Structures are given as structure tokens and as C-alpha cells.
């Protein structure tokens, strides 16, 4: 990782409004370092999903500056966005699985988008299916999967490309507590390999299960950072890729 990429994401005074409405996010400033584990919390309507949309490049902010992997992504031409998106793994709150593809093909999709030939797909996709306990549901379409199974497919799809940053919006919302812990262990395994993890959640019990995690609390569109530790965090050791 070059010196320019010592941080993975930096937000400086970022604001977001939809249309001519009032700002849903205001003066958001923080820095995410590689290998960190963050929980994003806040009440419903606090702006968690809007902040995540900015993070996974589905939205441009109304003001402020966002730097990702050492590059200003606000002025980045849209033709260069796919390259950045491939370095991200996203678990959407509503899963966003492709309805006419099987669980296997949904999980394989990021690799196919990245140009991995079919003959190289089988092993990693089978491993992922095994890991999330869906080997026997490989050929099932999303409509025939339960909410928890769909969520596991969505998580498998997000992590199969071994992203530099994993962004998960309520990833444990539809699974039982045992599965929630297992998924969290997967996120931790990725995190230990250097992947920055950002998990938005309402579940305060989860926060205690990852002791080294940092908490980003949103309150009415503002980031609660009284000590400035999120904006100017102490340098953390960079994990090996």
C-alpha cells in the first residue's frame, strides 16, 4: 500500500441532501484506516444508510470531500468508479440478490464481473456456500430462500472477492443469534487479513463481541465524535494484505 493509501477512507465536512430537502447528513468528518473494524450505530432515521451509500459510492455528497484509497472520489470521473467499487464488498439491508440467479450464481457474480473464468469459479464459490451453510441450497433461487438464507447469500457475495473494505447494513438482522455470531467471526477473519469492516447495526450486543472495534454513532445526521478520535484517529498498525 502506498503512502497515499495510508488511510482507506477520509470524509471531510461531508454533507448530503436529497433534492432541495434539508440535509440528512451534515459536517461528517472521519478517517478509516486499513484493518480497522467499525460499528456504525444510531437511531432509525439518523442517516446510517445514507452514510453507507456514500461509502459504497452509490451517492455523491452535496458538499465536502471524500477520499478513498488515496483518491478524491468526488471529482473522480464515473468511468473510474467501477475500479473502486470492486475493492468494496457491500451487504445491503434488503440483500439485493438477482432474483433469477441461483444462490451459486449470485455469490459468483462479483468474480464474474471481475472477469474470473467459469472454470476458476467453482472452488471459491463452493467454499463460500459451505462456509455459510448453504451447500444444499446452491441451486435455489432467492425467492425460495428464507430471509436468513438470503442474508447469508448476500454476505457471501460481498466477501467472496476479498474486498479491501466490507460495508454491511444490518447484516445480522434476519439471522438467529448463533448465525449472527458466526457471520461476525467471518467479518473478523476478513478484518484480520487487512479488510476494513464497517457494520451498521441496531444490535448493541454485537458491539461487545468485537473487542477491538470502534464505534461511529450518528445522531440526527451528525457524527457523535466529541473527542475527535474519529476525525483524527491514532495511527493503527496496518495489517498485512
Amino acid at each position, binding site marked *: 500500500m502506498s503512502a497515499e493509501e495510508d488511510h482507506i477512507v477520509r470524509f471531510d465536512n461531508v454533507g448530503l441532501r436529497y433534492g432541495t430537502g434539508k440535509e440528512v447528513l451534515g459536517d461528517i468528518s472521519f478517517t478509516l484506516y486499513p484493518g480497522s473494524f467499525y460499528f456504525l450505530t444510531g437511531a432509525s432515521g439518523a442517516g446510517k444508510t445514507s452514510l453507507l451509500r456514500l461509502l459504497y459510492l452509490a451517492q455523491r455528497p452535496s458538499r465536502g470531500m471524500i477520499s478513498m484509497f488515496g483518491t478524491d472520489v468526488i471529482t473522480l470521473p464515473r468511468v473510474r468508479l467501477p475500479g473502486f467499487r470492486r475493492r468494496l464488498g457491500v451487504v445491503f439491508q434488503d440483500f439485493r440478490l438477482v432474483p433469477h440467479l441461483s444462490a451459486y450464481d449470485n455469490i459468483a*457474480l462479483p468474480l464474474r464481473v471481475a*472477469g*474470473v473464468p467459469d472454470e476458476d469459479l467453482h472452488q*471459491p464459490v463452493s467454499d463460500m456456500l459451505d462456509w455459510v451453510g448453504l451447500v444444499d441450497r446452491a441451486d435455489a433461487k432467492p425467492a425460495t430462500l428464507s430471509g436468513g438464507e438470503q442474508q447469508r447469500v448476500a454476505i457471501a457475495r460481498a466477501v467472496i472477492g*476479498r474486498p479491501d473494505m466490507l460495508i454491511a447494513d444490518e447484516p445480522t438482522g434476519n439471522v438467529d443469534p448463533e448465525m449472527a455470531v458466526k457471520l461476525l467471526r467471518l467479518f473478523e*477473519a476478513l478484518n484480520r487479513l487487512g479488510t476494513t469492516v464497517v457494520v451498521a447495526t441496531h444490535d448493541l450486543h454485537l458491539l461487545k463481541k468485537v473487542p477491538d472495534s470502534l464505534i461511529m454513532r450518528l445522531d440526527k445526521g451528525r457524527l457523535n465524535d466529541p473527542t475527535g478520535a474519529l476525525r483524527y484517529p491514532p495511527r493503527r498498525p496496518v495489517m498485512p494484505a
Partner: protein
Amino acid sequence: MSQAPAFLRGVTTRLSGLAGKSGRQLLPQARLAGPMLWVIAIMIALTVVAAAGGLALANVAGEARGELSGAVTVQIVEAGAEAREAQARAALARLQRLPGVADVARVPDEEIGALLAPWLGEANLGGSGDASIAVPALIDLRLNGAADGKAIAALRKALAEVAPAARVDAQADWLKPVFSAIHSLQWLAASLILLLAAATIAAVWLAARSALGTNRETIEIVHHLGGTDAQIARIFQRSVAFDAALGSIAGLALGLIAVLLMGSRFAALGSGMVTGGGLRWQDWLLIAAIPLVGTVLAALTARFTVMAALRRML
């Protein structure tokens, strides 16, 4: 859920992605709807008929021009039979000696009579009496070069002394209105082909936009996973090209049936000019290229439509 998956060992990636079957699976509704395939077939069939018609007319005109380019008719328009005969002989003798004349022959009076008899009646022709109609003597000649204004003027000058009753005309002049009509029909065929191409583009544009709308959610997901506009457009382009190729082949078959039927009907007429309107191998090659051009046009239209629509997304 077992121990950490092997994907953590990493995967080698190559940037080609979503080609072939996986692309078709991802956006199954990127294909043109059923009726659209037949719309393309009809467009191609009409284009084949228009192109074949235009090419046949070009051949008719070209052949007629070639035949008539050096052809000249000399009429001796003299009421007196003896004077007419004398001038005709003198004119023939003079023409045979002129440089630049490739071939010259007098049209026998019997042949002229036979041609005119159905209209004028045999009793009124060929006689020398007061009641008979005086028919001009005709000399048919072919020049080495074109029978242009300069050549005709030279012939008139050469004949003025020996056959003052001679009228010299280039045969092509008589067919000028026919050539003009053929030219107009060729423009009409070309205009029809352009209009059909425009209609095909419009139909594919509409179908591609509809397919885009149907697949919007999947396209957004692929974008979020790092898919490029070009990857998505390529899926649409290939699907549309495949469907357009099927439609084009069906259209070519329909068009060829129509062209061959029309050709056999015209050939049965046995008219000199019409038989010159047969299609040559180059023409058949051009006609065979129409479905190819139609398919490429449809694929490019789909690509540009999809790329333009995707540019409006982040």
C-alpha cells in the same frame, strides 16, 4: 458453517467478465421481445425487395444505355416513293463511307410494313397509289463512339447534300423519359431503404430502452459490484445482435421469395428491356449483405442506447 473458506487464499482475476452464457443468464430479458424479431424480419424483407428493385432498374438502365449509346436512326421523310428510294440509297452509300460508322444497314420496307400493319392496315401500306400512306425509309446505323450531339450534327451535315429529306436521331433520345422514370424509381428505392433503416433503429431503440427498464434493478446491482457500462452494454448488444440476426435471416428468406417470384413474372413478359433487368452476382452479394448490415445496425443501436441510459446512472 465450517472453518475459514478457501476464498481467503485469493482469486486470480482477469478483466473480461460477463461474457457469453453468464451474461445471458444475468440479463435474460435483455433479448428483444418476440414481436420485435418479426418487425426486424419485415424491415429486412422490405429492404431486400427495395434493394433488388433498385439494382434491377439500374441494370435495365445500364443495359439499355449500353445498347443505345452508339445507335442512330436515319429516316428519309419524303412523300415521293422514287425520290425517297433515291435519297435512301444515296444516304446509305454515303454512310458506309463515313469514318466512325461501325455498322450500317437499311431496314427492309417489308419489315417496316410488318411492324406498322397492325395499326395502319396492310392495304394502306407499301403501295404507290394516292391512297397509300407514305412510310419513311429507315437506315439503322451504329457508331464506334457515343451518339452525342456532335456526332449527330456531323451525320446531318454529311447527309444534307445527298439526302436533304433525311432526319437523323440518336436512339437514346427516344428513351430519355424512360431513363428519367427509372432514375426516379432508383431514388425511391434508395429512400425506402434509408427509411426502413431509420425505422429499424427506432424499433431497436424502443426495445432496448424497454429491456433496460425491465432489468434496471439487476443493472444497479452489477454497478454496485463494480460492473462497467461497457460490460452491461455488451450483454445487451450481444443479445440484440443474436435476435436481430435471427430476424434478419427470416427477413432475407421472405424478401428473396418475393424477389424471385417477381423476377419470374417479369422474365415471363419476354420484353427486351425487362430481360435486361436480371440481377448479377455482385447484386446478389449486396442483397446477401443486407441482413449483416441490419444485424450490425441493431447491435450498435442497442449499444449506444444502453450506454446513453447508463451514463445517467452513477
